[in-house]
């Protein structure tokens, strides 16, 4: 039985909810650096790691991991409060793939050796992970992935290409979906491999996106040799494990935080542009405001399910669709009232809070990543409404 001593010695589940909230809030307020709150774009490891290490040092890096594995072991209701407080301060997202993906993967499916080797290095920030899922011909249809791993002695030999790999240029490890059986049904020949990015044969090429930012990368694998012991779980069962990990992403992408943040900036922009009192603007603003409030109510119903310890069904896709499209509608409105500022590359007047074009561009991929909204609607129509294939 693996045991990794948690840094936080107190069992925070014993606290009353409101006392716990106050405790978390005051600690974040005192410890999350001001420049890492509400950053205008996704930050690189070099920029966000001070916050990662603050959390690590406190023992609060992995609120959802069991205490036995060095996490906080928070009950669902407490995890929700924790997330709400992180979102309240707009704390920068760290390179968190190790925390939210690799950790739960290994805790559920890893061998004791894998757990002991990798979990402590996530907890201390030594390993920075990236996620090797999408490929040029396997985007929405992820199960069509073709990057292959062929067993050769006690090593897998990996060949292929990944794309849209978030912050791969920061990462020293990658968790990779690879095809290990070309003859099986496409979902049934996929495995999970953990790959050291320093292995010979790996090339990372950043992609400049519409934000002029290099958040995403292409990753090429050319005869990359990976120890067979780095395969997680059962060979060829990787698809099921990957799907189970997505439940985090689906509720995360439905959180109102992005829409709510853009909405506060909409008001500031309207005041600056002198249209705040305009009746037509007020009508649009009121509609967006009520959409945001109803999103919060709907999000609350899913959060309540988590709080009761239930697992979320496919209907959580409703949140992703509505949230991301609301985020876009808010930023569409910002652009519409911004006049010629709608074409500026930098925030207006050097003020980070008056950044209509930055938010407009950031809102574009929200309906594409994490399963495009078209895919989410397919999921809703088939798995929730029961419409035929």
């Amino acid at each position: 039985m693996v045991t990794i001593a948690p840094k936080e010695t107190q069992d925070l589940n014993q606290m009353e909810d409101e006392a716990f909230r106050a405790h978390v809030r005051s600690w974040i307020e005192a410890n999350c650096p001001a420049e890492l709150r509400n950053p205008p774009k996704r930050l690189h490891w070099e920029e966000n790691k001070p916050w990662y290490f603050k959390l690590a040092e406190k023992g609060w890096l992995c609120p959802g991991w069991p205490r036995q594995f060095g996490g906080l072991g928070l009950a669902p209701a407490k995890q929700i409060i924790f997330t709400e407080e992180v979102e309240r301060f707009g704390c920068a997202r760290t390179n968190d793939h190790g925390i939210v993906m690799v950790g739960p993967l290994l805790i559920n499916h890893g061998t004791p050796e894998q757990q002991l080797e990798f979990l402590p290095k996530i907890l201390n920030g030594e390993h920075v992970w990236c996620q090797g899922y999408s490929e040029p011909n396997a985007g929405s249809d992820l199960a069509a992935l073709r990057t292959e791993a062929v067993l050769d002695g006690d090593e897998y030999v990996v060949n292929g290409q990944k794309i849209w790999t978030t912050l791969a240029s920061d990462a020293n490890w990658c968790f990779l979906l690879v095809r290990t059986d070309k003859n099986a049904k496409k979902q049934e020949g996929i495995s999970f491999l953990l790959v050291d990015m320093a292995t010979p044969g790996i090339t990372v090429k950043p992609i400049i996106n519409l934000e002029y930012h290099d958040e995403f990368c292409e990753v090429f694998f050319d005869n990359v040799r990976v120890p067979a012991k780095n395969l997680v779980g059962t060979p060829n069962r990787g698809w099921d494990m990957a799907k189970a990990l997505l439940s985090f992403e689906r509720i995360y992408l439905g959180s109102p935080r992005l829409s709510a943040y853009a909405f506060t900036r909409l008001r500031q922009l309207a005041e600056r542009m002198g249209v705040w009192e305009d009746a037509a603007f007020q009508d649009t603003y009121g509609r967006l405001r009520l959409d945001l409030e109803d999103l919060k109510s709907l999000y609350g119903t899913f959060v309540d399910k988590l709080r009761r310890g239930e697992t979320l069904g496919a209907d959580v896709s409703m949140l992703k669709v509505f949230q991301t499209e609301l985020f876009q509608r808010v930023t569409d409105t910002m652009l519409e009232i911004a006049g010629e500022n709608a074409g500026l590359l930098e925030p207006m007047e050097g003020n980070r809070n008056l950044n209509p074009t930055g938010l407009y561009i950031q809102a574009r991929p929200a309906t594409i990543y994490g399963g495009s909204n078209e895919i989410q609607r397919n999921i809703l129509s088939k798995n929730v409404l029961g419409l035929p294939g």
Partner: protein
Amino acid sequence: MSQALDDRSESIRMIRDSAGAVAPPGGETKRVRALRFVAPGFSRDVFAEMGALGWIGLAVAEDAGGAGLGLSEAVALTEEMGAGLAPEPLIPAMLSARLLAAADDKALLAPLLEGAQVVLTAWQEKADSIAVPGTGDAPRVFIPMAAGADAFVLPVREGNRIALVSLPAAGADVVLEKTMDGGSVGTLRADLARASRVADDIGAVLEQAIDEAALATAGHMLGLMEKAFELTLSYLKTRQQFGRIIGTFQALQHRAADLKIHIALTRAAVESAAAVLDSGASGAVRQAAVSKAKARAAESGLLVLRQCIQLHGGIGYTDEYDVGLYLRRGMVIANQYGSATLHRRRFMALAPEDVE
């Protein structure tokens, strides 16, 4: 979870079960169709049954003869009534019961709670308004199902107070207009010389009671949306064109997914507002919660109902096919107790800028 919450979900479940007595779960519409345009447009027997089941006094305190339940139960009930297209004026009756209970009246309240007498509140003086000026000689308009009233109660302003007076329907000057769903609304020109005084001042509860009726109406709309969408989904799963089930077409699947999102938003808005009211919230918080729910229900409601017609194609445009019944009812109730625009405006005027 706490015992209180368990009790609440249990009482909501019981209310929903009991609703089957009036609104059959199978969605049978024969009763509803037979009542259309036949005065008074609803069944007095069913109204009496609603009284016997304790629904008219659902949110009236037990010591006043009611069931002492809350808005969470009330919206569950009105949702079931919407799904069953029940034409009986349950929400207007609940509003009257609330006022009469606050007035500490027994003479009118007891037969109303039993469902033996239909008592309707004539409060409205103009279209799309939730304000109650209480102008003594103003015609009172858009009284739902006025054709079936036994008595009216009227708020009448007297200085800083709003008195409540009652008037028998027999002999009253009521002009009826037919509504799209086969019912009626009435305009009452009250002869106050014939009226009897019920209470000196009901000003404190009047606004709250109308807000509760607005929220209950949002619940009714939610029921219409759910049922019309259910019909539409089953149509999408059976209708064939071009040699395929039409529900396999992605354009229709995606539209159905969008309608489902609107229904989910409406449910979240209505049920969270009911919880706000049941928690004892007052003032702006209470009013904002109601406006949020009513604005959503009115707007998303009509959107879903008319899209349900579209997704059916030609058959949806026939009176014979049931889906149109839901749109017709939706048109009648969408703006009752305030349109989407009215409630959006009120929400914006009330709501604290609490977005972070």
